């Protein structure tokens, strides 16, 4: 009997010992992708999970010559370790999200630095090939999203001073398009151009579809607004106005019908709305929507949202920069709209959010910029196991 007891005790003691396991390496990590060039700067835009469990990151890099940002693509493995990267030449600049996965390929938009014409860029998961297709009649691409295999593109026409929303196929052919005036007069496009030159405020341009309506977040009628359109009539179906370029939406996620998860800003203040009903017809004001005010989020900070299930609970997760140089994650119960838990990433070197997603395994993927040694802007990728977001 004593012998069995000793054997059992030995087994239990041994079973509790630490072992090197690849599952643990893949389960949670924070990786910073450093470059030893003193003058290099990188800023991620979006990421996609690959079929092999790795990740593909679309980013912009600074260019020594020129006023726009260059394209940078980074592939990492399941544990976040660097595999390969790609720096396309400077014939195309200003890459924009989303990084869209269609079939086995990945698509995003960039533009010609001289003609500012939009280009649809396609690459594969291994970054072995890259093809570019000019998009006829489209300039200054600002944001893109995917509706099944149809690409929704938001762009700006500096000749007609119009915000343009278009539908494209993967060949880069525009199948439908509508343009909306940002307003007439001198100086009205200045903040838009400064956005593209990266010399001014970076506006949270985005686009998408809810029900039968398409929407975009951009300039319309002198105001940074959320605009709903059916892409048929010349006038918008609905407009949720901001406050010129000092107020509006930072992020939006359709939940059901006219209910959305949203984040808005207004003269430097930031508000989170886990569940808000928006009027998709007529004109309304974002200022009237209320929301939870977050003094810890600085002015003009990026806000990212995803809808998912964490620990068997339907949640809406918001992520944003904080005044302390961290990235804050705010997990809300989708049903009740109550805050379940928060988590902060980063401490020594500043962290800035670019994208926030849920992985196929249900964990949280956070990608953004950190400043190595307090000065070098580099891409970071953090994977947070969902069990670490308990409440």
């Amino acid at each position, binding site marked *: 009997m004593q012998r069995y007891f000793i054997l059992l005790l030995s087994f239990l003691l041994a079973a509790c*010992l*630490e*072992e090197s396991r690849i599952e643990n390496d893949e389960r*949670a990590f924070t*990786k910073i992708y*450093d470059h030893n060039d003193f003058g290099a700067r990188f800023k991620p835009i979006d990421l996609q999970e690959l079929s092999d469990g790795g990740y593909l990151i679309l980013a912009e890099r600074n260019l020594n010559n020129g006023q726009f940002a260059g394209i940078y693509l980074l592939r990492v493995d399941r544990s976040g370790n660097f595999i390969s990267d790609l720096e396309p030449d400077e014939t195309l600049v200003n890459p924009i999200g989303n990084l869209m996965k269609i079939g086995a390929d990945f698509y995003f938009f960039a533009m010609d630095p001289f003609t500012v014409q939009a280009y649809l860029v396609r690459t594969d998961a291994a970054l072995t090939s890259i093809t570019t297709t000019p998009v006829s009649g489209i300039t200054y691409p600002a944001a893109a999203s995917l509706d099944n295999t149809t690409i929704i593109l938001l762009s700006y026409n500096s000749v007609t001073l119009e915000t343009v929303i278009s539908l494209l196929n993967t060949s880069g052919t525009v199948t439908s398009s509508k343009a909306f005036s940002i307003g007439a007069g001198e100086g009205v496009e200045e903040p838009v151009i400064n956005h593209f030159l990266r010399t001014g405020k970076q506006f949270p341009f985005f686009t998408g579809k809810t029900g039968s309506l398409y929407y975009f977040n951009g300039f319309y009628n002198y105001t940074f607004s959320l605009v709903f359109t059916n892409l048929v009539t010349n006038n918008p179906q609905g407009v949720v106005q901001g406050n010129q370029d000092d107020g509006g939406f930072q992020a939006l996620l359709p939940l059901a019908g006219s209910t959305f998860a949203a984040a808005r800003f207004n003269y430097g203040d930031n508000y989170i709305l886990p569940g808000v009903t928006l009027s998709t017809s007529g004109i309304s004001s974002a200022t009237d929507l209320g929301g939870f005010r977050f003094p810890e989020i600085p002015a003009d900070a990026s806000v990212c949202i995803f809808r998912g299930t964490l620990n068997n609970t339907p949640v809406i997760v918001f992520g944003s920069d904080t005044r302390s140089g961290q990235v804050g994650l705010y997990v809300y119960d989708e049903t009740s709209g109550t805050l379940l838990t928060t988590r902060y990433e980063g*401490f*020594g070197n500043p962290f800035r959010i670019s994208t926030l997603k849920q992985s196929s395994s249900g964990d949280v993927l956070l990608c953004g910029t950190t400043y190595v*040694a307090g000065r070098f802007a580099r891409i970071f990728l953090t994977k947070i196991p969902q069990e670490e977001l308990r409440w």
Partner: protein
Amino acid sequence: MKKLTLLILLMACLSTWAQKRNTPTKYKNARMANAEFLEKQWWLGLKTGTTLAGAVAEKAYSGLSPVNYDVPSKVYDNYSEAGFTASLEAAFSFLQFTIVLQPGYRSARYSYTTDYLWTDYSNPDNRLELTYLQRQRVEYADFPLLLRYDFTTTRLRPYIQAGAYYTLLIQATKSLQSSGTDYASGGVNQFSNPAVSVGATDLFAPRHWGLLGGLGVNYQAGNVRFTLDIQYRKGMSLANSTENRFANTRLSSFGDAMDDIKINSALITLGALFPMKFLSKSFQSMNTR
């Protein structure tokens, strides 16, 4: 530590005094008479001393994943920072062999550095050299079991010993300090930033085990056995947590990730052991044939 040392000395003095008071002249006469009885003895005592620890990397990890240079390797500075140990010793002697259970406290300290270099491609003279120094202090509750062999049966007994230990993590802390030289800001500026200290218990394995070997010497003064003990403990399982490698966001934001390591330690202790059974009249506790 001072209190513990004083306590050991006090107990040793009292025991020695008591033995001398009762049997100053009968010691030699009585020792042979009860030899058989005294071949077995239980001992209980305290030990305290210093430790030196070293980490051996089994597999390297880094939070920084360079895209155009090799991952900088950590350079470990082992056996250079002293820690503290104190233990209770319960021993059973039979002839020249002793089985020892030695539960105790041990702190292990070690450090490592990682060097980085960024160079301006357009002007190589512009560069930044940066060194991260990471200091670890880990505290353990050890449970060693060992077999000891005495070379002699005299008052002065040198011995060798071997065994194994199982250890439980009590707590751990890490501090990170960055320093370097900036050649790119208009001069040669050497800088050193204040250290950042954080609790790091989650980053270490809650338990591990190892083998130990060593030597020492006992000196019998009356009934008290004074001992000088030297041990080398070799970690046999990982001392870091593989699950929580990136759990500390403060450290991971600097690009730090602990390697898979095993911790080895050298311990030098002084102590006093007291017999648990006596002859009824002589208070003799040992058989010095």
